[in-house]
Structures are given as C-alpha cells and as structure tokens.
C-alpha cells in the first residue's frame, strides 16, 4: 500500500495502482477515452492528464503508477491534483485536439445521448472551436454484420483493437498507417471472426463503431431499461433489456464480476429481432393434419379430452432449454398430480442427474474460480461456442500467467494454446492410467480444474465417462475442503434449475429420448425444440416460436420468452438469477406458469397458486435455495464425486463432439433471428476459408 494525496485528500492505495485508479479511490473524477480497466493501458488519448506536484508538465494518469511518484522533500506522500487550473486547461486543450477532426454528426449519430465524447466535451471542453480547416475524411470499413462503422468519428483510442486482441483473442483489428492518416480497420476489411465482436461497439467511446442491426432505430433516452439475465447459454450473463413500448430494442451487458464481467456474446446481444419474428401469438389445434388458429378454450378442451382418456404411464413431459424454474415447478406439480413419472428436462440426452448429488452437475469451481486454477483439463467441450464467457475467463487466466491447459475432444481454436491430448474416451483412459505426462501436471497442481462438457456426457456411455472423469478428479486431488475442481459445463439455461427441481424420470419413468421415440401417447412439450419427436404421440407444445417443436405439435399453447416474463434461472455454476419482464408477450401468448395453472384447472388438477408470488412461495418452501437470488449454494463435492466414482461402466470408443454445431443457431429464438442467420452463414464461410 502507498499513500498519495489527491486534491488534498490522503488515500492509501496499492502501490501498483495508476494515478487514475488512485484518483478514483479518492473520489475524484478523471475523464478518459482510451483507458479501460479491463484492457491494457494505451495512454494515447491524453484526456486523463493530471498535475503531479514536482512534475514539469501534466502527466497521463492512466499510465503513471502511484509507485512511480516521487515523495516530497521531507518524505511527504506524493501529491496530485485533478482540479487545478493547469489540469482544466490541459483537458480543454486535449478536447480541442480531439474535436479537430471529429465531425459534427451528433444529430445523425447513433451514439448521441450515450457518447463519452459528447458528455466529456460538455463537462471538460470549451464552447467554441478555433479551427477553420477542413476535417479529415476516412472511408468507412466493413467489419461484418454486427458492427457499423463511421470512421470519420474515430478518435483512435484503440479500445477495439485491444479488445479483439486481448479479451476476444481473435486479433483481426489493427491501426494502419500513421499520424493523421491512421485508420482503424480489420485485416483487408474482412468481417471480424470473434463471437464477442459486438462488444467493441459498446467499448467505442464515440460513434465510430455502432451496432449495425439496431442502427437508426432508437435514441437511448426513449428506452425503458430492465435488468435481466441471458438464457442463450448456461452462463447466465447479466444483461439489461432496453425496450420501447412492447418491443425489445436492444440487449446490453451489465457489469457482473461473478459471471460475465462486462462482456456478452453476440448471440446474447443480437437475438433481439428473433424475439419478434416467427412468434406464436395464438393457440393452434391440429385438425385433419393442419394446424388451425383456435381459442384457449378449444386448445385446453382438446388437451383435456386426450389426457383424460390416457393412462398416466402413457403420458410424458419434456422440458426445453429456455424454461424458467417457475414453469418447470408448475409442470412438475401438474405431472405429479396426474401421477406421471415420465418427466425429463434433458432433451439432449445428457446423463447428469440429481441422484448423484448437486455437486455432480454443477460448475463447482464457479466462473471467477477459474482465475484461481493452476492447471486446466477440458473434457468433451468447446467452451468457446458452448459458453463464450467461460472461455473468456479461461483466456483471462491464461493471459495472467499461462497455466498448463489440456483438452480431450474436438481440436478447436479456443483463442489460447492448449495441449491437445486426444479425441475420445480412449485418451481419457490413457490419461487416467498415467500414459500422458499431463496427469503429473494435474497431480502437481494445487488447484486443478477439470471441465467436463456435454459433448462427453450426452451420449450412451455418458455415465461411464462421467464416472471416469470423477475418478480422475479424485485421483489428482481436485476436490478438497477448500477447492472443488470438478466442473460440469452446461449448454442449456434451464438445465441446472431443472435438475435442482428433480425433473428427471421417476421410478419406471421414460427418458426424453424414449418418450420422443414413441414411448408415450400424450407428450407435453415445454419448449423443447432440439429433439425430434416420432410420429404417433399427441404432442402439446407450449413455446414461443414456430420452430421444430411447433411443427410437430397437435396443440400449440403460445408462451412468453425470457424478456416477457419474470423467471428464475440457474446458471451452470448453480447461481440463481432472476430475469425480469421488459415487454409483454405478443397477441394471446401468456406467461408459462399462468398457462399451466389454467390448464391444470381444465384437467381438474388445480395447482395450488393463483399468482406468481404464491407460486414462488410454494417453490421457496420446497426448494429454499431458489430464494437466494444472485448467489451460489455450494454443493457437497466430495460426496458427489464418491457417488460418481462408484458408478463405473465401460467407455465407448466414439470421439467427443461438441453438442453445439452452430454457435449462432442453438435455440428457437436464435433460429428466428435474421441477424443470427447472417452471422451463421458468415461463420460458415470463414470456417471454409480457414480450412482451405
């Protein structure tokens, strides 16, 4: 710790702090453009100039360490000033320079109203310009379907260059030429290859990079902001949903150090148009092989007629990837009251189950915990496309001080180097038997992290693989009292909540696969679109989009997406988070729990709640940990590992493949989105190009 006096206030800060951080610690505001606390320091915008006592001229506070300051003549702490006339003048001068070439575009600029340059020019600039000269003109660059450029506005802070190189790990942006001719561009103006590229438009302090899909659609002050949580993957990124009227206009990241820091993936951000396209806005009933619009009463009557004539063993329910805990709880209660045991929330066929303890299916290490790991083994997963922000954490860990990282599964580009051990279970056996030197690395590590993905678990020998990984975990001592290195990476937002609720087949119950392949006569499908249901069964589809599930349905009950309802989601770590309603569902679509409540009435099994609050009260009484929003209830790791090791089983020979085939098209909302389709086509082209 080092003492420093900021504007007469003495503060004690870590010596490695920069003056800017020290000033913030002392409560002084320092304007900046190029400095960003999650990127490396560039020091090129000069907006953060402060006066250091004893220094002949103002210094850039973002690039000057507290430990680099000289003490006073009698050993007093170094003194800086952020409010002196010199500083004011320096800021005015810098601002004037920045505005020499910045166009007066604000009325037609999408950044207007959320622009750092605009705000800081108001706060720290002067009110007139002394320049008569022409401004420089720069050609706009093509950066792909997500980022629109207007390079005249660029002030060369290089945040976008640093983000793509450092955080995203796909270094395809750079600053070409020099001096006044400097231009920010991607290599040969190709589309950016990162799945996090849209974050550069958030980072841009001016309007040079803006979001292309939503450009010219809104002004930021028109939007209603709702804090929510993302359901595109199992990370549960914190987001802010901005809506105008009934329509969601954009999705932005929220800072959440425990989950997504302040980034979100492109899928999380840009599925906005998918929320209004292909929507189911009224119930449908299939008659003579064709779906026809119907009223809720007709739809319920059709269901009731079918359910009443069917034995409970021939009824089943499958839960999809986007369901919130509330409706899953309602469905569970309804199925229990009907005496149905054929309930499964694992449409991808994964073998995880609450039977082996909560610790057997959580990402026990937690996402921030990745930063403490000192050796990482990834089994059957491609975290870059399955959980982009988990991959960002691993990359962050790798950048801090590269730990040994190894992978068994698909040999994909994860943006950081790793030791590729092999493709399938054979390699896992080899590793466990000590034929790979990496086992020694894991044994030697104090806090080894073993990530096992759905690519290794959603397969017939999944249990054996899980058991083998658990054995390995035990073997290398990855689960101790202070460290749990056994981590399961999920791909579905609903999965952990469903497993917490115990939505797996009961005694004698059928699994999702068995039900889909004709094991039941009446199948209740709560938004499961990634599973093919064989002809024969009467399918009730409750969901949001006209996707695979709706096409196969006999009755369609239109429901609300995650932005249109208040729902609890549990992410892969077991973190309970709440999504809030930002808009209303279209047409006659209703919130899922309300549909189930109404249906239960028609079926003569009225569910014991009339409001969401009553439902939650019941839910929290049965499962108290859902009440602890934003927290992770740690699971008993040792017991879970013990249970898994006991399973044993024979490993197959097939290689592990990631369950996510196309990052941009993993769920019905994304498949409805035109932007995602464009991204997907582009990514395919890039992949083909790379393969050449």
């Amino acid at each position, binding site marked *: 710790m080092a003492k420093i006096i900021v504007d007469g206030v003495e503060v004690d800060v870590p010596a490695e702090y920069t003056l800017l951080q020290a000033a913030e610690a002392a409560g002084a505001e320092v304007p900046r453009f190029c400095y960003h606390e999650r990127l490396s320091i560039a020091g090129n915008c000069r907006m953060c100039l402060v006066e250091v006592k004893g220094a002949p*001229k*103002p210094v850039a506070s973002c690039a000057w360490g507290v430990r680099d300051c000289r003490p006073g003549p009698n050993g007093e702490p170094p003194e800086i000033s952020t409010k002196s*006339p*010199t500083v*004011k*003048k*320096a800021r005015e*001068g810098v601002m004037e320079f920045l505005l020499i070439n910045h166009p007066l575009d604000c009325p037609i600029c999408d950044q207007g109203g959320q622009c750092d340059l605009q705000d800081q020019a108001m706060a720290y600039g*002067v009110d*007139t310009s*002394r320049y008569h000269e022409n401004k420089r003109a720069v050609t706009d660059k093509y950066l792909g379907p997500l980022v629109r450029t207007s390079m005249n506005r660029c002030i060369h802070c290089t945040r976008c260059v640093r983000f793509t*190189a450092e955080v995203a790990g796909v*270094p*395809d*942006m*750079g*600053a*070409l*030429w*020099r*001096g006044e*001719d400097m231009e920010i561009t*991607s*290599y*040969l103006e190709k589309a950016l290859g990162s799945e996090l590229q849209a974050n550069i438009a958030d980072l841009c302090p001016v309007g040079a990079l803006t979001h292309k899909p939503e450009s010219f659609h809104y002004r930021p002050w028109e939007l209603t902001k709702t804090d929510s949580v993302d359901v595109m993957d199992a990370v549960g990124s914190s987001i802010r949903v901005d809506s105008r009227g009934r329509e969601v206009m954009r999705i932005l990241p929220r800072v959440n150090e425990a989950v997504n820091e302040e980034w979100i993936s492109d899928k999380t951000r840009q599925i906005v148009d998918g929320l209004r396209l292909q929507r189911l806005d009224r119930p449908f009933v299939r008659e003579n092989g064709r779906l026809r619009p119907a009223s809720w009463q007709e739809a319920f009557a059709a269901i009731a007629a079918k359910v009443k004539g069917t034995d409970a063993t021939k009824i089943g329910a499958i839960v999809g990837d986007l369901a919130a805990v509330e409706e899953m709880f309602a469905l569970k209660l309804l199925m229990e009251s009907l005496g149905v045991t054929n309930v499964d929330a694992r449409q991808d066929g994964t073998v995880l189950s609450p039977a082996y303890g909560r610790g057997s299916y959580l990402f026990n290490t937690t996402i921030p915990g990745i930063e403490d790991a000192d050796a990482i083994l990834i089994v059957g997963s491609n975290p870059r496309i399955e959980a982009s922000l988990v991959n960002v954490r691993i990359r962050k860990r790798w950048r801090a001080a590269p730990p040994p990282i190894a992978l068994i599964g698909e040999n994909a580009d994860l943006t950081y180097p790793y030791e590729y051990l092999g493709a399938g279970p054979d390699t896992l056996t080899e590793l466990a038997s000590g034929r790979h030197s990496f086992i020694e690395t894991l044994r030697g590590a104090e806090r080894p992290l073993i990530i096992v993905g759905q690519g290794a678990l959603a397969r017939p020998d999944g249990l054996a693989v899980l058991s083998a990984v658990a054995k390995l975990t035990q073997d290398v001592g990855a689960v101790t009292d202070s460290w749990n290195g056994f981590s399961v990476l999920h791909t579905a937002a609903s999965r952990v909540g469903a497993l917490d609720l115990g939505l797996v087949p009961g005694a004698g119950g059928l699994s999702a696969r068995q039900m889909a392949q004709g094991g039941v006569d009446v199948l209740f499908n709560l938004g499961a679109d990634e599973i093919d249901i064989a002809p024969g069964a009467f399918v009730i589809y409750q969901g949001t989009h006209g996707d695979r599930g709706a096409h196969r349905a006999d009755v369609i009950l239109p429901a609300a997406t995650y932005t249109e309802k208040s729902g609890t989601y549990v992410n892969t770590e077991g973190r309970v988070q709440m999504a809030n309603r930002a808009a209303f569902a279209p047409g006659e679509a209703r919130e899922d729990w309300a549909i189930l409540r109404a249906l239960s009435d028609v079926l003569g099994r009225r569910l014991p709640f009339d409001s969401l609050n009553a439902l939650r009260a019941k839910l929290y009484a049965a499962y108290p940990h859902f009440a602890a929003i934003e927290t992770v209830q740690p699971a008993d790791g040792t017991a879970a590992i013990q249970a898994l090791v006991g399973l044993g089983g024979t490993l197959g020979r097939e290689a592990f493949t990631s369950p996510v085939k196309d990052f941009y098209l993993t769920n019905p909302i994304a498949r409805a989105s035109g932007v995602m389709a464009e991204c997907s086509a582009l990514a395919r082209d890039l992949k083909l190009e790379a393969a050449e």
Partner: protein
Amino acid sequence: MAVRKLAPEELQPESFVFSPETEAFAQQQIAKYPPGRQASAVIALLGKAQEQAGGWLPRKAIEAVAARLDMPPIRVMEVATFYTMFNLEPVGKYFIQFCGTTPCMLRGAGDIKRVLEKRVGDQNHVTADGTFSWLEVECLGACSNAPMVQINDDYYEDLTPENFEKLLDDLAAGRPVRKGSQIGRNRSEPHEAVNTLQDPSLYDGSVVGAWRKRFEEQAKPAETGEAEAAIASVPQEARAAKPGAGRPIESEAADTPAERVKQGETPFNPVDQKEAADPSVATKGKSHTEEGARSAPQSSKSYVASPGAGAVPSSPTTPNAGTPPAQSETRRDGSESKPGVVVDKDNMTS
C-alpha cells in the same frame, strides 16, 4: 506525407515464398531475440522481404512474414503501413527517393524535381519499361552535398539537372555510374576551396572562455544607453553562477591547444597553421571575435522573467462567457502553468 495505399489486386503476385537467402537472414535475425520474442524481428524481415520482392511489399509477403514470425497478419500490416520506407506498391528497377527538404531545396532540388517529372512522370508512378519510379522524401541527411537523391541503396549527390539527366541515362542504359558526389568531390569535403574554420585563433585555445570575458567587459562600461538596454535584457532572476556548468568534463585529451601549452609547446602546430592559412586553399574570412564585442542576440519571443507581481493577470483564467477564445483576455497558451513567468505577447519587454 504522400498518400499511401496497398497495391491493387491485379498487381499483387499470386504467392510469396522466402528464398533460401531470405530464410537464412530470417533465422539469423530471429536468433537475436529470446525465444517467444520472435516478433521483434518483424522490421528486419519485412525489409528483407521487400528486397526479395523487388523493392516493394506485396500482400503475400506481409502474410509470409506474419506466418514466419507467428504473428497475426494485421500486426505485420500495421508495421508495414507505419514505416514509409516499406513500399506497398510496385517500384521501378531504380527507385529514386528524391530529397525535397529545405537544404536541398535551397541548393536547387526544384530543378532536379523537374527533371524527374519530365523523365519519369508523376511520383509513385513506374515508367512503362519498369526502369524508374520516384518519390519525394524528407531529409536523407546529406545536406552538405545537396541536392541529392537516393537510388535504391545508394546516394547520388551534388546534382545538377545536367549531371542528373546523364546519371539517369547511364542507369537506363546499364552503364556504370559513380555513386556519391557527381562532381568529383570526396564525400563532404570542401569543394574547390576551404572557406570556413580557418581562423587560427580557433585552434590556439584563445577562444576558450572568451564569451565570459566579453560578458564581463560589457557589464563594466554601463554608461551608454545601449549598454543599459543590453543589461536590461539579461534575465533578472539569474541563477546562481556555476562556473563549471555547461562545460564538458575536463579530461586529458591528446592534442588540444591547451594540452600543447601545458606541454610547453606552441598552442598550435605550426605546420597545421601554415596549411590552414595557405591562401591557395583558403579564402580570406574574418572571425566575429575580431570585431567589437556584441551581445548575443536574445529572442524576446521566449519566456522572460516576470518584471514583478503586477504582470500576473488578475482576471480569472476562464474566459468570460461569449468571448471567442482567440480574443480572450486570459492566457490560453499554457503559460500559467509556469509560476513567475509571463508571456511577452507583443514582443515589447526590452
């Protein structure tokens, strides 16, 4: 700076592969840096690749360097576009870098430029036969031999339109040409006659400390108005005198005049003196030390000491609302960051 751009696609070669020589050079350069720091060799490799590709960097060469150094192509592209010595478009077999900076300009670079425009055409334009292209560059550091051009790796100096035309003819015809000065001068030695640095007193040690003596002499007869004015222009808040300040650290040099005096010899080697004073090689020149002592010119545009507290403006540093910054009473030049100093805006202090 000239507008630079990448060569159009039709001029880009299909491929670029390091020649064995370039590869050997690359290995040698990379070996200079610690493992994992191979990217430090990027400029050297780009230079060599440019040499191999015929004086310019095709895109494939940039990509080849990126692959060789395990760098993203954009990082190499940044370097290649930053430095103007990397040509991104094809150049002639003889790439003429013409110096147009002030010394060359004063010595007739304009005529040389006209020759280039007549013979070769516009800048960045290769002649139809592929022999020449030219580019105006900033100072190449051969000012004493101005005007000059650099053709590929060599300097051609002391140009006149005539000898430059001949030089280009010879190059185009493949005849041998003379590098360096085109008027038979040896490097930057005096041409025709020595006419500077001939005053013997420069070499006898007598000028050492002369400025101080002159200063003291000037300070004594302060009767005339002129001398008063001279004193008034001297900084009032003079710093404490440090007699040794600004002098080189004294060391035992081999053949300085002072050393010679110490050794009991004449301060100046008579042979050298005779040579230097030889009228056949030197023209007559007068040393400024021979004339009456003058004070060194002082620029009143620099900061001068504050004549007193009254000079500090009492108005606030922020301008009044509505005042255009250019007409503002307050200082907008950063000078208030120097306490005790005012800017003499009107150049009227003395």
